[in-house]
């Protein structure tokens, strides 16, 4: 009985849906606020992300004639489920719901499901803008995913483990891997921006070009779920980087682990916000060029160096 309760608690409250929802709303607010301050604006009040979510949930839900209704309803739910599941394996403040050797690979796989669902959503919702956005999102996926995976394999190889919690725990005894592999950390950050489709890599949903990309025809609850997926994905991605590169939660003995974990997560969020304010959106061919000509070779070099040092 108590075991069931603890499972339910993990799924629905911490580190499951409730906690992630709260984090997603908070991070979204901080992100919007920081970007607004950088741009000389004031930014929204703290409850704006929640208000946006409630408003979208209450709005009428329409799809164009000819769109595959079942798939369009299922895709946002599948994506949300995937990112929520991924969150279960990521330690937060030293506490993790489930862990096993190799959970990093499972998490990376789960985190790539929304990207594919996003592409399918564009393809199935019969609008030229969504189709163009969908094909762009697929091309973008191939551009950032390879360097991202290679960059994230660096910490795993150095720690000799494919378990996120163990990689994080090892760093707290030694040094942060971001200091050992600054290049890998940067590549992972760039990859994360691509994964989250944040500016300057918001190519698949570039509003001045293709309206809202794959999500052009979505509205109401489905759109709310899509947005929620994206925002929770941001939280999960940031937590993942904190664990892999910034030593997770336990650094100081005096400061509680959750607090230090939160500060590190905010630091990465800040970098994402600044990056989105600093650059113009690239074109998809320019991103593919950068992905394959710059990021991938760098990631490969980093990985080979890591194997050489780690093995020798």
């Amino acid at each position, binding site marked *: 009985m108590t075991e069931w309760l603890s499972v339910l608690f993990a799924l629905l409250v911490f580190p499951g849906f409730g906690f992630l929802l709260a984090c997603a709303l908070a991070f979204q607010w901080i992100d919007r606020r920081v970007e607004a301050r950088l741009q000389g604006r004031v930014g929204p009040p703290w409850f704006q992300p929640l208000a946006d979510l409630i408003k979208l949930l209450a709005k009428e839900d329409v799809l164009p004639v000819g769109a595959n209704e079942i798939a369009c309803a299922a895709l946002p739910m599948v994506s949300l489920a995937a990112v929520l599941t991924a969150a279960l394996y990521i330690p937060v403040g030293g506490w993790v719901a489930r862990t096993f050797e190799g959970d990093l690979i499972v998490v990376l796989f789960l985190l790539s499901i929304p990207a594919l669902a996003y592409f399918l959503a564009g393809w199935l919702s019969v609008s030229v803008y969504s189709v*163009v956005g969908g094909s762009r999102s697929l091309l973008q996926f191939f551009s950032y995913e390879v360097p991202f995976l290679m960059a994230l394999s660096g910490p795993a190889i150095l720690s000799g483990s494919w378990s996120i919690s163990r990689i994080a725990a090892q760093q707290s005894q030694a040094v942060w891997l971001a200091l050992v592999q600054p290049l890998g950390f940067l590549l992972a950050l760039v990859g994360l921006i691509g994964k989250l489709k944040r500016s300057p890599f918001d190519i698949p949903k570039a509003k001045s*070009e293709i*309206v809202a990309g794959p999500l052009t025809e979505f509205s109401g609850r489905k759109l709310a779920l899509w947005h929620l997926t994206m925002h929770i994905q941001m939280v999960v991605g940031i937590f993942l980087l904190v664990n892999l590169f910034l030593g997770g939660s336990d650094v100081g003995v005096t400061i509680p682990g959750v607090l230090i974990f939160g500060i590190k997560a905010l630091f990465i969020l800040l970098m994402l916000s600044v990056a989105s304010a600093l650059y113009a959106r690239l*074109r998809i061919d320019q991103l593919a060029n950068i992905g394959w000509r710059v990021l991938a070779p760098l990631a490969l070099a980093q990985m080979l160096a890591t194997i050489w040092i780690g093995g020798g």
Partner: protein
Amino acid sequence: MTKITIPIGPQHPALKEPLSFLLTVEGEQILDSALRIGYVHRGLERICQNRNYVQNVHVVERVCGICSHIHTTTYCQGVEALLGLQVPPRALYLRTLLCELERIHSHLLWLGVLAEYIGFTTIFMYAWRDREIVLDIMEELSGGRVAHAANVIGGVSIDADEAHVASILDRLDVLERQIKLFLDLIRRERSFQARTRGVGHLSAEQIRRYCVVGPAARASGVDVDLRRDAPYAAYKWLNFQVITAEEGDVWARTMVRVLETIESLHMCRQLLTELPAGPLTVRAPRRVPPGEVVSRTEAPRGELIYYIRSDGSDRPARVKIRTPTLTTLITLHDQLAGVHTADVPVVLAGVDLCIACADR
């Protein structure tokens, strides 16, 4: 690969004004484009024939929502030529001052729009924030941010005292610092250049063939500027440079426009410090003697032409307006051929369309 047709407009996030494009696209490359205009035709030229000359000043002010003052200037200049009026120098200086302030405001607005199209929201916010300085100055001078109603036939209806001039000069310094920041950014920011260099290229031959005017022509190395070539208002008393560039792409157009903004700031300073004393208007008769006139000015987007014919009554027999946007619209087909779909908004922004002007 299959060809698909992407409609851009009449309603589209990249369009601030209604305009319609049908783009034939293969993959991400544009093969063909078909343009439709006329969504904001309001019949202003016909309306002008039903109103008297004084009322028409307010009608032509509504042709454009960005460069309203240059329209009234061109119109009043034409009517004054028909009447043979000598406008007092102080009025010419104030008229020119508003023209140049309007150019700064139009160019900054344009820079913001371009930045938004390429996803550079920060520059969009900065440019529009700093544009407020100019809008505030214009509002203080005339009472209106965009529609100033500053021109009357035979002079201007606005004035500035010495304290006001000093305060405007102070704020122009602040504005210049901000614009230099934009200039620095355009020269150095790589993501900005990646999106604007080589996009929407027009050669000097194409410019001449399509009769393109204004900053778009000057960015392709065609040195035309009516303020120097056929000085009107107070321009013959001013020192300024005509900015040109050679590249002919959107980046060059950005450079030309931002440098022109700085040049306009210098002109505003000259106008304010050398502002002559004297009356603001001369008295104009209600009836205009028969005749016809072509009045030309350099609007922020290029040469603006008014043709006015009088039959001796208090209403014009014909007012024909040719706006600079008309010439750039024609070049869009050439500019869009072969570009990436992602560059469509950049190309559209690059030529600085004013659809309301073109449709009238």
